[in-house]
């Protein structure tokens, strides 16, 4: 598929065209999967994944450098984060392996007790009750986006991202420690 079409789809999606996402996702997903699996093949216990690098690489391969606005780029990252999460969950289901996105491992500190599946479930629960907090975690963990990128994408301020991130983190901690409580 030509780059222009992809960019077009991104733009459409960001304009609120839900169908654009449906057509976009398989492309991103396919490319990401291909990249991720090459990394995952080399995984070891305790292995962490640099999701940002993967997403970035997927972006470059799919769209390249040409004339892509930041907006489009961040949309791509938003999709990619979602895809990345799916890929990892799928991979974890198959292998029950401990392979976390690097940020998740470092910041949630669950490399010992938990795995992608537990995180996925916790994140699902979080997203039901606190959609924006869930989105922040997803973008940060699976898309590797930083605070200002997330702020821009979600249209909120950086301090809000920070506060909400802290909330999400505490919430996940609590859920992962005792899933039934909240």
């Amino acid at each position, binding site marked *: 598929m030509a780059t222009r079409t992809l960019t077009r789809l991104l733009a459409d999606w960001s304009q609120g065209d839900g169908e654009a996402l449906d057509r976009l996702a398989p492309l991103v997903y396919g490319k990401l999967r291909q990249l991720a699996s090459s990394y995952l093949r*080399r995984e070891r216990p305790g292995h*962490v994944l*640099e999701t*940002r*690098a993967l997403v*970035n*690489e997927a972006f*470059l391969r799919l769209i390249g*450098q040409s004339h892509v606005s930041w907006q489009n780029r961040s949309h791509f990252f938003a999709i990619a984060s979602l895809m990345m999460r799916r890929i990892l969950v799928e991979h974890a289901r198959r292998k029950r392996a401990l392979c976390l996105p*690097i*940020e998740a*491992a*470092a*910041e949630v*500190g669950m490399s010992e007790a938990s795995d992608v599946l537990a995180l996925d479930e916790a994140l699902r629960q979080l997203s039901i*009750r*606190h959609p924006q*907090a869930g989105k922040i975690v997803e973008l940060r963990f699976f898309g*590797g986006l*930083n*605070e200002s990128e997330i702020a821009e994408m979600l249209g909120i301020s950086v301090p*809000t991202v920070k*506060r*909400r991130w*802290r*909330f999400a*983190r*505490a*919430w996940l*901690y*609590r859920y992962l420690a005792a899933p039934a409580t*909240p």
Partner: protein
Amino acid sequence: MTPVDDRRIAEIFEQAVDLPPAEREVFVERACGDDSTVRREVEALLALDAEAEAVAPGFPERVGPYRLAGKLGEGGMSEVFLGLRDDGEFVRRVAVKLIRRELLTAETMRRFETERQILASLDHPSIARLLDAGRTEDGVPYFVMEYIEGEPIDLYCDRHRLTVAERLEIFRQVCLAVDFAHRNLVVHRDIKPGNILVTEAGQPKLLDFGIAKLLNPDLMIRGGEPTVSWGRFLTPEYASPEQILGKPITSAADVYALGVLLFKLLTGADPYRLRERPEPELQPLILTAEPDRPSAFVQRAMKRADPKTARDLAELRSTTPRALARALAGDLDAVTAKALRKEPQNRYLSAEQMAEDLRRHIAGGRPVAASRPGLPGRGWLAAGVALALALAAVTGALVLQSRRLAETRAMAERERARAAELSASFQRVFAEHFRQDFAEQPEIQANLLMALGQSYYQMGLFDEAATSIQENLDIRRQMFGSEHEKVAESLTALALVDAAKGDYDGAKALHMKALELRRKLHPGDSLEVTESLIGLARVLLVKGHPPHAEPLLLEAVKTREKLLIEGDVRIAEALTDLGHVVEQLGSPSAAEHLFDRASTIYRRSSDRWQLAVSFVNHAGALFQLGRREEGEKLLRIVAEIEREQCGGESANLAASLIHIASAADSQSCQMPRLAEPHLSYLLLGLGRALTELGDPIQGGELSKRAKVAREPATPPLLVQPVSVPVTGGCVPDGGFAERSGRPCCSGVIAGGTTVCSDPDDWGNTWRTCRHICGSRLVNGCVPRGGVTDFLRLTDCCSGASLPRSERCLNPADSITYRTCVFTCR
């Protein structure tokens, strides 16, 4: 919990989290009112948040062009993060090392600036590259290094169950990488498994080269007292004695750490079992205790009640405990011992040497290809080695060592000193072995002591040689009484050592004692007696008493001609000595005749060196007789032999020239003016060389002539010590650098020891010297301005591009040695 509750919880949490901790409680209490469910929830989340914040990485989001994505690890001095270069150009993964803020001092920063360029230039497949370095916006220094996906070398070896040989191969690569860095003036100072990662492809990669030095030049341990706790700055297992004592750290510290690493790879433990000891015991152990031997470690594990340890150990190496112990005994014990010596100067001179030893070991101790006939005048030594061989053969365990000896013997001249150094390490183990193993068999013990003494002699370790031979003498006296040929043999050996040390009176007394004894033991004609006659005569000649020497040598020649078949080289030996004496007594024609006869015999022998020496003698006599053309013809043959044997320039070639020169001199021919001062130094050097080569007579004579020739000449070969300010790190040609008020000889490094131990002069002088001197190396000879001390095998500067020290450790190159000593002292 209702969705409304959820929203309230989030709201209250987010507000509270912005408040100072002290005010939160009051705020939450007020905000929640009497809704205890929400309050309990918010408080729980805030507590978790506090916990998370406490451990959350307080690192910047970006460092230079790199985005930090999580922590890879942390050490005492720094934290390492995964860095991603994601500026849209390409994705590159790097390791970013951030220095701990509390370590930042002005000194650290200064060094940081000056050294990072050097580190960045280290380009070697086994060294993780330093890609970049700088400071963050907050002024925290950082290093950006190649990101290595691998695991620590010890774990890698265990996980793959690598055999001892495979482990050695990887370890050797590490040694070569360390050596590469050393040659680029970078000392690691913190070699340990955690800093050596092996990739899945089996490629070892060293991390953090030179960084330890940058970060804590002297704060590791100061003045013998640890100023900081162990765990933080040093890995005790890998710390060398000098690091503990706060002495200057050189590449020798890395060699030590390599020794510990080798021990670890072989046995899974460290040589002192430091991990099992309380902290106060560590320092004394490292400073004074004998390191364990790898084979002994495995053997003990086998004997212990729990044989499982030994089995596990062996299994990780794909072998059995017994085979493992066998594989480690001997060479590998010796290599580790050598690297772990307490004194830096006694360790391997370079990591490359260590690698080379291991290569030889892996290759099965095969003989060196580049062998050539032995040096002249060394029959005694050859016999000694043969003896060692014969004896060692009866005791299987020692065969390997003796093979080393034989190998050493056969080595090419250029390799000899290096090999001797190696051999010395084996000797020590050797000595240790047989002292214990043969305590019950004094005869074997005595013979081995003799062999040991002879090897020491060969290496120029005269004091050690004397000690061993004296021990041998004591045992023999106890066994055989004072009147026995064996005792005479020991006395003779001691006499040779004394002569080599320059103690001619001692040598004379010993020879006389041996002669007296032999005359008594062997009435009538005997070869033993002729040996003592020649020995004594040589000493008398050196002491300037040729008239006393003459009758002794006449008797020796007569006896040998009688007892030996015509053409035996032992006759030629006696003829040569007699020739020297009559030459001294003023009868050049008689001398010429004697030398001619000797040459005739040597012509038929296969020893080309001996023939060359004989021709030189002969030529000298011919010059004195005015038969210049005949003399020169002989010298041309000599030069040819020398070229054929060692190629190109060598001290021997110089020796021939000296003979031409000195012959001309004695003829009162005017030598070219230029040659005059050179002559004295060349004579001095040659004199020493000949003494070393087992010809003290000629050696002493040349030294004497040199003294005469030298006065009152100013030494033209000497470079005057100049105190020129070092500009741009450049030391003037062959001269001295003075930095921080400390003089510093140009050559610098000696066997991994910084001679110019000016801590501020890290690398500069050395680099310059290498630049100056490196280019001038001709065939392993050190040009002017350098120092090489091949006897002690320690000091060595300027000549070679060190630490490839063998280059300037040319034993035949005494002339340079002489010059260099003068220059640099």
